[in-house]
């Protein structure tokens, strides 16, 4: 088994690959690995900075693996290489089932020859069970093994949609959960509330509502990538929506009271997997628990579409844990290949990885109240 390799650097080459890329992301059940998301986010947010180095691996003409890498000079502590639009949650190279290890071996050979030579490669928010970082390091073509470090892992709660129907799923939950969900829906309905998914006609306004509600929710709470993404990110969401809304790859669940949006939640889907990207809701209507209502609606919709799993996204917030019955965490890795620049790259990388590891160690060692106090102090600073 050997794979044929293409290195794509031109935007037109990437766009031409999009249909096959989409099929691969679907086969891998990686919603945010689809080109509608990755290419749009790159084109509208990072095109001036990130230089694509997308490695397509084929067997007999068929695309079996794809590593959407880029050189990102903003990221010097990582030596510049990362996944294209790595700011999204759950980014990963793609490979057909059973082909990742072999594809990583091929990729290692290509990466070692890239221009500029990789000082390091960062995998940010990659599934914790992904073989890619280890497989790349194991098969890196050099006399010395690359330095590889996983420096952070974050929970991402999941809901298995293995029952025959939404009703069966609800029936499998605790009676407390069932009555709470029914009560919430009833209360919201009685208040004149309604829910809907965005359509092409409502997309523009719904995205504006999402950004506004999200920003309102984060005010005084710290950093949010949606808030800092500003108008460019809103435009990117809208473009992804235009591309992927009709085939269900992009879903925006809106809850309204008297025609006014009180909650907006964004989901991506592919190959039977749905991921909750982010959302926002109006705190004046906290009594209706809009975040939970929106997720409940999205789960019902996923059952109707025959999907198999909902990933509630990074972060184990209590409202997600009410739904979750598993977790598929995300990890952050950095790999530093051997070479002349290795000592300098390590000197830049180690403080960052050590800091993250120290934070994790502190969380393990300290009682939750003290961790919370430290977190609050840091936010204030």
């Amino acid at each position: 088994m050997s794979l044929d390799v293409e290195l794509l650097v031109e935007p037109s080459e990437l766009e031409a690959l999009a249909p096959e890329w989409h099929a691969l992301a679907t086969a891998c059940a990686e919603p945010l690995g689809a080109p509608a998301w990755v290419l749009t986010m790159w084109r509208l947010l990072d095109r001036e900075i990130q230089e694509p180095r997308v490695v397509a691996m084929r067997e007999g003409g068929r695309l079996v693996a794809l590593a959407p890498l880029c050189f990102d000079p903003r990221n010097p502590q990582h030596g510049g290489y990362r996944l294209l639009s790595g700011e999204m949650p759950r980014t990963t190279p793609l490979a057909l089932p059973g082909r990742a290890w072999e594809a990583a071996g091929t990729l290692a050979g290509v990466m070692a020859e890239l221009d500029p030579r990789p000082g390091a490669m960062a995998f940010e928010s990659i599934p914790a069970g992904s073989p890619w970082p280890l497989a790349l390091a194991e098969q890196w073509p050099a006399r010395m093994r690359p330095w590889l470090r996983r420096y952070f892992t974050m929970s991402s709660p999941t809901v298995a949609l293995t029952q025959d129907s939404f009703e069966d799923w609800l029936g499998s939950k605790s009676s407390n959960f069932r009555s709470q969900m029914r009560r919430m829906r009833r209360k919201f309905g009685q208040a004149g509330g309604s829910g809907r998914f965005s359509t092409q006609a409502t997309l523009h306004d719904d995205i504006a509502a999402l950004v506004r509600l999200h920003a309102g929710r984060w005010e005084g709470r710290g950093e949010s990538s949606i808030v800092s993404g500003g108008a460019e990110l809103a435009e990117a969401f809208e473009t992804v929506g235009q591309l992927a809304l009709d085939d269900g790859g992009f879903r925006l669940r809106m809850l309204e009271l008297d025609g006014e949006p009180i909650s907006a939640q964004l989901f991506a889907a592919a190959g039977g997997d749905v991921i909750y990207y982010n959302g926002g809701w109006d705190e004046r209507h906290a009594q209706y628990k809009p975040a939970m209502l929106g997720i409940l609606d999205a789960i019902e919709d996923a059952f109707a579409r025959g999907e198999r799993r909902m990933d509630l996204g990074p972060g184990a917030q209590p409202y997600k844990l009410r739904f979750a019955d598993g977790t598929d965490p995300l990890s952050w890795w950095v790999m530093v290949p051997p070479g002349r620049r290795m000592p300098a790259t390590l000197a830049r990388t180690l403080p960052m990885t050590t800091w993250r590891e120290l934070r994790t160690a502190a969380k393990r060692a300290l009682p939750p109240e003290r961790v919370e106090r430290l977190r609050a102090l840091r936010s204030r600073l």
Partner: protein
Amino acid sequence: MPEAALVTDVESLAGLAPGWDALAAANGLPQLSPAWVLAWWQHIAPQGATSRAVVVRDGEQLVGLAPFYVEPAGGGRRDYRLPGIEIAARLAPLAVPGREWDVAEAIGAALCEADPHPDALRFEGIPVEGQWLTALRDSWPGALRPPLRLMNVDGNPLMSMKEPSFEDWLAGRSSNFRQQMRRLRRRFADAGGVSRVASRETLAGDAATLTRLHAQRWEDRGHSNLVDLGERFGAFVVALGEQLLDDDRFALRILELDGEPICAQLFVRAGGTTLFVNGGWDERHAALKPSLLCLLDAVEEAFGLGVERFDLGVGVQSYKLRFADGSAPLGWGVLIPPGARFPLTAARTVPALAQARLRDGARRLLSEQQVERLRTARQRLRGAR
């Protein structure tokens, strides 16, 4: 939050069989099914080994099981291991898919309280494409995260059986492969060859044949765990067959010429996965390529049973690569929980780690032929010992 309990006697472990079997099926790991593990306890377990299985439940539901055992070793070592590496790899705890992290946390909590306290958890042939190593390390209780030393990674070819039938699968292979397989089958049939699977009546004899042919094949070739096990391996195969044969989850395939067995291969199934365990063949009939033929018959049978994945077992031998269309490598590593004996255990792993790094260095520095020559020399030395 699931709760874990330690099971320290094998009889109690046997009582968990129905739920446990469902977990093995959901994970596609026949080598962790109750039939396999209990047969291992009966015939293969080292003397003095005791069960330290961790059983994880969420309410009434069995959501995870890690059938660890501990055996006394030199220097008072207390390493916890999963059973069966003598026979097959891909050994990992079992969990309801998606609940690996919950289960890992519960396993860690239970093992922290276990007696004796584990000096190390040794993982032999654990899937590297999976959650377990990370999950067990990250969710281990206490302020310190146990260090994980990954010593070695080995290839493990796979066949994804996504085609609707054997004929469709064959049609998707290269014309060279198709022609060779058809020619092999024709030649074998012309020579009067017969392919069959063991029945209850022939099981004991066929298990003895498997043991004999495997030992013959490894004579002067170095080291084989199955040869070391001797008759205990045959007894294990019989016990396993008696449990699984009637459910089409066990196939001991035999090729015969003039009533004489020339090849035997063992396959076991759980859920949608068939595992090729091991085999042996008579070198006098090498021209008929019995291992390829036998494997081809097993693949055809697996399509008939609706199998989704055919695990060709650890090792990237060329005959396996003729069939494989993917790989799911396995790792050998050790997790060292914090404790009073931590420094000693950490020091003890240094030679193994150094050896692994040397091996990796040699693999990177030397040509493939040189690595192969070193490997052969090492196998001869081990065999001579």
